[in-house]
């Protein structure tokens, strides 16, 4: 089959693939942003919370980090159904990836926050900043730079992990591609295209992270 015929098949499958790509981006964007937000709060709780809160969060983080993400996805999909919660496959899958993301970002944030020297907290206290203002204006901006490389890794994991949602029937990019393959039998060609698309998404995330990191190069001691 020549290249123009392949392009023709890809063109024919364009709406399926486009829909899959949008779903993949949607899953990733929601899971990463919600997971990051929750993860930062978890990290703050782990670093500064009272003992009971720390124990609960520690349990959550260690548990989720110890489970394969596919198991977590199945658990959220079938488990919530058994509990009588009627979540769509999309919602359950995004929720599971969000849980996964939050646990990892939580641990990352805790480490970054605790690596900022105590002297910075002293300085922020000394100019009269209360707890949350110290965090927002003094500690987190410095922690952000230390969090970035790890955040890029986790975000890329989530984008890749979104393919697992195909196993509970979410038509994201992988499943959409497989549907196109089932119709055309162009296995190698479509998987190659899939590889390129995933690479582009994750490469973009990684470049964005690197760019931010460079722009924050002034955060030094």
């Amino acid at each position, binding site marked *: 089959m020549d290249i123009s015929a392949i392009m023709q098949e890809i063109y024919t499958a364009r709406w399926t693939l486009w829909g899959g790509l949008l779903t993949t981006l949607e899953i990733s964007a929601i899971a990463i942003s919600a997971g990051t937000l929750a993860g930062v709060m978890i990290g703050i709780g782990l670093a500064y919370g009272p003992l009971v809160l720390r124990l609960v969060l520690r349990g959550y983080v260690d548990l989720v980090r110890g489970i394969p993400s596919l198991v977590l996805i199945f658990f959220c999909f079938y488990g919530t159904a058994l509990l009588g919660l009627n979540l769509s496959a999309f919602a359950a899958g995004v929720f599971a990836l969000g849980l996964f993301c939050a646990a990892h970002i939580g641990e990352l944030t805790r480490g970054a926050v605790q690596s900022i020297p105590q002297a910075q907290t002293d*300085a922020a*206290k000394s100019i009269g*900043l*209360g707890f949350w*203002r110290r965090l927002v204006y003094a500690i987190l901006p410095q922690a952000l730079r230390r969090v970035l490389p790890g955040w890029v890794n986790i975000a890329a994991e989530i984008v890749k992990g979104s393919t697992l949602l195909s196993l509970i029937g979410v038509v994201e990019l992988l499943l959409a591609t497989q549907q196109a393959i089932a119709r055309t039998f162009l296995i190698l060609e479509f998987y190659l295209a899939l590889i390129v698309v995933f690479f582009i998404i994750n490469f973009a995330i990684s470049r964005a992270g690197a760019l931010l990191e460079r722009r924050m190069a002034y955060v*030094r001691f």
Partner: protein
Amino acid sequence: MPDTPLLSARNVHKRFGAVEVLNGIDLDITRGQVVALIGASGSGKTTFLRCVNMLEEYHDGEIVLDGERIGYTTTPAGRRRLPERAIVAQRGRIGIVFQGYNLFPHLTAEQNVTLGLVKVLGKSKAEARDIAAGWLERVGLADRRGHYPYQLSGGQQQRVAIARAVAAEPKLILFDEVTSALDPELVSEVLEVMRSLAESGMTMLVVSHEMLFVNAVATHVVFMEQGRIAEQGTPDALFRNPESERLRSFLGRFHQVFR
């Protein structure tokens, strides 16, 4: 009321575990006084300084700034730590300059000074920038406003830190061995700024190993040893006629200089 002390410490005790680091400190500072705390490492100078703005908690006694008790209140049930909000507000009325500068590395020199003015004192950004510009000029760094800490020398960073501490017009400003981390040639630029602040009537509590500076600028010198005030008086009295053998030996070569 020139006679009521601005800062009054009574019987201040602090322990780290079983170690009594402050063993009953009594000290009065009146407005405009420059009080120097001298003594060997581990004598409790820095710890006492940090207790004054509650960066360290103390276990007994009281510290009163301008009629307001710092950090604690007494209830029928006993001594209670004030709520965090109250302590935060009290800290805003006391400035401190640290040995390691502790500037915020993600903020420029100007932003380091304006952060507290805007977020704590509620000044407008424009007004805060004006105040910052004035102080940065006063410490000789008008042309370094937009520099980040890593672009400044140690002495310059410490002068920014001084500007940050005084910009909020604190009632009292604490200096914690502010020249100890500096190269010898950078020490004098910081001491000059401190001297000028002292001359402008600022009330200062200074922990320092710069005996010549203390001798020239302090109005009152306190020699601490093992968590206690061992000897105090004017620089003249302490440096030229130390009563205790301990102070004589601490002053060592300085004693020769002053005689």
